Each structure stands twice: as structure tokens, then as C-alpha cells.
């Protein structure tokens, strides 16, 4: 099968890789680059577990044709930390017990990061809207919504990742 070379930035570091035709970005990030933080949940665009940021905006990596990200900036949960220090969202998710099985967590974190990056003081409704494309089967959403609001209150989200 023909392969195409692409270059893009993943969490600030430059990646050059061959992609298969028709391959989606999720697969390239996971198997191609080895960043396993975005997860496969449906391949249909209905669960949000594969959410990554492309040029700062949330996208579903499973529905993104990999070669379309040539030259673009991709962010995943793998790049959220600043060194050993957790991002305020990560801290808030821990303190708020907002993760149970942890599978939806990376997608939730990226959806939340996209929100806080453009709106550091969101209302509850804005948080609900921001995670409305992300399925969580464990928590009932409440702890996740609260954790995002707590992270916003703690501030400083923009200084990370």
C-alpha cells in the first residue's frame, strides 16, 4: 500500500512519519508515533475519547484523515503536563475523583482544555456544552463538570501544554 510522508508537531515536537492512505490521525498518533494517550472508543465520531486539539481546537482524531494535518499543531493529553507538574485540569480531575475507569479521561481533558484556553472562566452551561461530545459511562458527568469548574477557578490553565 502506498505510504505518504507527513510532518506535523505533536505537543510541540516535530514528527515526520509515513502514513497509509486512508489512515486516520488517531491511528497515526497511537501506533505511528507511539503517543497512546488518545483512545479509540468508536471510530464513528460519537464518543469523543479520541479528542485531540489541532491548532488549538478540539477535533476527533478518528475522523481526521491523517495526511490533512501536514504542518499543523496537534496536542494530546500526553503533552498536558509542564515537566513533572500536572496541568490544573489534571490536578482537578484527580482531586475531584473525576476519573473512574479513566478511558474517557484523555478526551475529556482535551475538550476541557480547549474550553479553558479560550474561556478561562466558563459557566457551568459552557462546561456542559464543551464536553457534550464526550461520553463517560462511569461518573454520571457531575464530577467531571465540577472538576473543570474547579480547574478554571484555580486558574493558570493557559500556561500549560
Amino acid at each position, binding site marked *: *500500500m*502506498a505510504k*505518504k510522508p507527513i510532518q506535523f508537531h505533536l505537543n510541540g515536537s516535530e514528527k515526520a512519519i509515513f502514513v*497509509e*492512505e*486512508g489512515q*486516520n490521525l488517531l491511528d497515526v498518533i497511537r501506533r505511528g508515533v507511539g503517543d497512546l494517550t488518545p483512545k479509540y472508543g468508536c*471510530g*464513528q*465520531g460519537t464518543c*469523543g475519547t479520541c*479528542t485531540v486539539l*489541532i491548532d488549538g*481546537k*478540539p*477535533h*476527533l482524531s*478518528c*475522523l*481526521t*484523515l491523517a*495526511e*490533512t494535518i501536514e504542518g499543523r499543531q496537534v496536542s494530546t493529553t500526553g503533552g498536558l503536563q509542564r515537566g513533572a507538574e500536572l496541568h490544573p485540569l489534571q490536578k482537578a480531575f484527580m482531586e475531584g475523583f473525576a476519573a473512574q475507569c479513566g478511558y474517557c479521561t484523555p478526551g475529556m481533558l482535551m*475538550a476541557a482544555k*480547549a*474550553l479553558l484556553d479560550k474561556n478561562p472562566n466558563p459557566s457551568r*452551561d459552557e462546561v*456542559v*456544552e*464543551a*464536553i*457534550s*461530545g*464526550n461520553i463517560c459511562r462511569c461518573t454520571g458527568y457531575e464530577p467531571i463538570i465540577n472538576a473543570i469548574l474547579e480547574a478554571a477557578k484555580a486558574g493558570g490553565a493557559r500556561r500549560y501544554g
Partner: protein
Amino acid sequence: MPVRVETYDRTEDAARALSSSRSARFLGGGTLVMRAVNAGDQSFDTIVRLRDPSFSTIRSEGDGYTVGAGVTMAAVAQSRDLAFLAPVARVVGGPAIRNMATVGGNLFATGNYGDFTVALLALGATVNLAGSSGRGIPIDDFLRDRERHATSLVLSVTVPRPREAGAFRFLKVSRVKPKGVSVMSIATYLPQSGGRVQGARVAYGSMAPHPVRATGVERALDGQALDAAAIDRAAAAATQGLNPPTDAIASGWYRTEVAGVHLKRLLAGERR
């Protein structure tokens, strides 16, 4: 068959690639095509891409706007010109989907999807295809032969500017909040002249295999003042000539029963 990706910089090349093969699909935002690729859809083996920036622009033209087929729902929601369409764009998918899903793709969405197209249908948009020398196709006609247009490249849609604020209304009924697929969606464009509705256009989503006009409702409203009696008559005619589908979200019976209720609430400005 493994999938091939063909990328073009010029519209006419992309259009030619698309029209020359029955097994090619045009990649908009990916929400339809990549889903099908992931599912191993055997009905196509070629993805056609276009890298023309004008494909994703919104232009004000005369008494309307020409919205590139590659414009995303997020871009519509942020556009000052298209403020009247922002409430529609905002109820399509979650934020990630809205950063991807395009106006052009929405024209081809089936089942419980395609709510944006419902709005375009009510507004009387025209669909501009590559190679059709500037003459747009009325969206009604486009939707009627949607399958036939699958090998055509949609360049843009032209949306007339609503004649008055408030003439255009939209409602999406969903079982899941804040984001869920449609039980039905309703778009009404009811310009008034001298206190009476002139040229009513009312459209539904999820009430037929593709977005459709509610002609009975339009007849009930045209030439009438938008008062309680007219609204009641419109509600009574809500599903005239329609045979709404049964699917995982709702039965045809239910859609038939509540279409008038939702229409009435939309027209009367009641919010629930």
C-alpha cells in the same frame, strides 16, 4: 479495496476526479467519509480532497451570503454575517464535530442528521455545483435528487439574508441534552408584509429520508396573521402529506403526533 487519497489544489480537478468515478467520495470535514472509511465501507475506494482556500470562505453577495461548502459549523457559529444561522450550527454535534463538519457535508447527511440543511431548506438556499456556470440549484431540487448529485462537487450554498430579524426560527428536538441527534428539527422562515405572512417556508429534518418542506403548514400560514388561530391551523396541518420514518430514536407515530406540538411552540415562541 485499500483506499486511495487524491488531493487537488484546483476545484475543477477535484470535480473531474469526483465525477469520473462512481467509487470516489469527496472528503469534507470527515465526519461522514472517514466514518465510512473506518467501517470498511466497500462502496468507495477513492477519497478526493480539495485544498482551495476559497472553498472555506463566507462571502456577502447581494441580498445573501455564499457559504463555501468547506465552511465548518464552528465557522458558521462564529460568523457575524451568518448570525441568524448560529443557533442552528451550534446544535450540530459537540464542539469537536463542529470544528470538522461542513456545510457541504451536511447536505448529504442522512437519517437523524442534517439539521443545518433543514435551515437552508427553509431559507430557500441554492446549491452551487462545480461546472454549473454560476447557476445554483434550488435546494429543494438538490435534495430531491441528492443521490444523483453524489458525483458532483458542491462548491457552496447561497443563503438569502432573512428579510427581517425574527422571520427565521429553528428548533431541534432531541432526547439527549445538550447534544443529541434529532427526533425532529423544524425550521421556519415566515417573512411578513403588512402583518401577514408572505412566502412561508417551513422545513423538517428527520421527518422523511431527507429534509423536506412542510407544505401543509406553509399553506396554512401564507397570507395569514401569525396569530393563535393561524398557529393552530398550521399545527393541525403539521404532517400533511408526510409519512415520518421509524428509527432508533422515535417511531413514525410519535413524530406524527408531536410535530404539531413542537411547531406550535416554535411559532408561538414558547420555550420548554
